[in-house]
């Protein structure tokens, strides 16, 4: 399953400009808003239910804690699950910024298998330059592969979304 990504409080200047933002957010995966900030993180599209915003902080949650209405509680074992165009990072500041999510890959392994979570930028790699008012869309790709039937691999980790003036 998958987890969470988001942005928290940023330093506010008198002009609304910022030079850098760095925020750690959770990514929780069991094999699973900040929407108005200068560096905004927001769910987009039909996969938005796989995200959640808690106390204003955006996150991805693909665990049983965020089960779907139909009862889904995680990704399949021995499969690759794609959550295309899951969220976007938007520059709502006044200057162009270089945005990067780190790490772009989360890995959890045990004796039975491994879980790999990729945060996939859509227009540039590994970082993307965003002019004011523009956004980068990110997808989430989750692969769980196991030696045997089933696996206990899971991840509950955090990634950093950073924006720095180019």
């Amino acid at each position, binding site marked *: 399953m998958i987890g969470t990504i988001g942005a928290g409080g940023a330093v506010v200047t008198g002009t609304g400009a910022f030079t850098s933002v760095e925020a750690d957010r959770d990514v929780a995966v069991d094999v699973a808003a900040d929407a108005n900030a200068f560096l905004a993180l927001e769910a987009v599209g039909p996969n938005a239910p796989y995200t959640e915003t808690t106390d204003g902080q955006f996150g991805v949650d693909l665990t049983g804690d965020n089960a779907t209405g139909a009862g889904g509680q995680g990704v399949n074992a021995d499969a690759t699950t794609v959550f295309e165009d899951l969220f976007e990072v938007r520059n709502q500041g006044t200057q162009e910024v270089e945005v990067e999510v780190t790490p772009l890959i989360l890995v959890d392994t045990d004796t039975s298998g491994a879980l790999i979570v990729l945060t996939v930028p*859509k227009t540039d790699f590994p970082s993307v330059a965003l002019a004011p008012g523009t956004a980068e869309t990110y997808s989430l790709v989750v692969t769980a592969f196991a030696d045997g039937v089933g696996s206990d691999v899971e991840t509950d980790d955090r990634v950093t979304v950073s924006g720095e003036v180019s």
Partner: protein
Amino acid sequence: MSPSFADFLERAETNLAFEDVPPEVRAELDDVLVGIAPSLYGESEGGGGGGNISPKVTDIIVTDRQGAVYTFEAEASDPQDSASALTYEWQIDGVQVGDGSQTLTRAFQSEGDVEVTATATDTGGKSSLPFSKTVSITLPAPAERFSVDEFEFVGPIGQTQSIAYSVSDADGDDDVLALRLSVEPDSDSSITASSTTLTDQDKGPVASLSGDFPYVSGFGGYTARLEALDLDGYDGTVSTPFTGEDIDDGDEFVTLREQTDAITD
């Protein structure tokens, strides 16, 4: 070349090796990436993770230490090239050093922690992420920085005509700056106290210095003392020509030999 799953894996903060991911999984993930953004991920050479994979530096070890001279070796892996085929960029505390080889030999002038960083590049031009390690540098005791090759009283016993002396660097950094030969007379001696400081004016720090103290004037007992100064004990910036006048009380000579003698005739 377009980024592929391998480029993501290179950025993992865990030690999952490229080979640990089954080939069919790598291929599937590359296909997924292409499906998400064909223009960004769609031109990866070889597809399915078959392109050139970046090397990875996994450790930096100290393989040898001779005095103040440390030798480091980077441990690296690369799917295409052997570790010895890679080229390496080294940094000590952020300053680029080295000649591109897998090992780095470096002489240190002071003790303390230094950050050693190595980055490997394979024959295809792909580079690893920098790997850094903090190494605690210790220096040998002062006297161990020098080797006295000669300290000889020349002439018949009791009628010393000269003192020949020669000192070389022993800690591997070839930074001998000066030798000082001093004659200190006994209280009832008529010998004149004197000293001479020898430097290589054209070069500053050198691997060795040799001198010949010409004669001892007078009669009676005296003590001859041989001292040496290197960069480790020098409190200043060396410029050439480097003379005895460039040395002051803040510089720390190391006493290497003391020997008594007496002129009887």
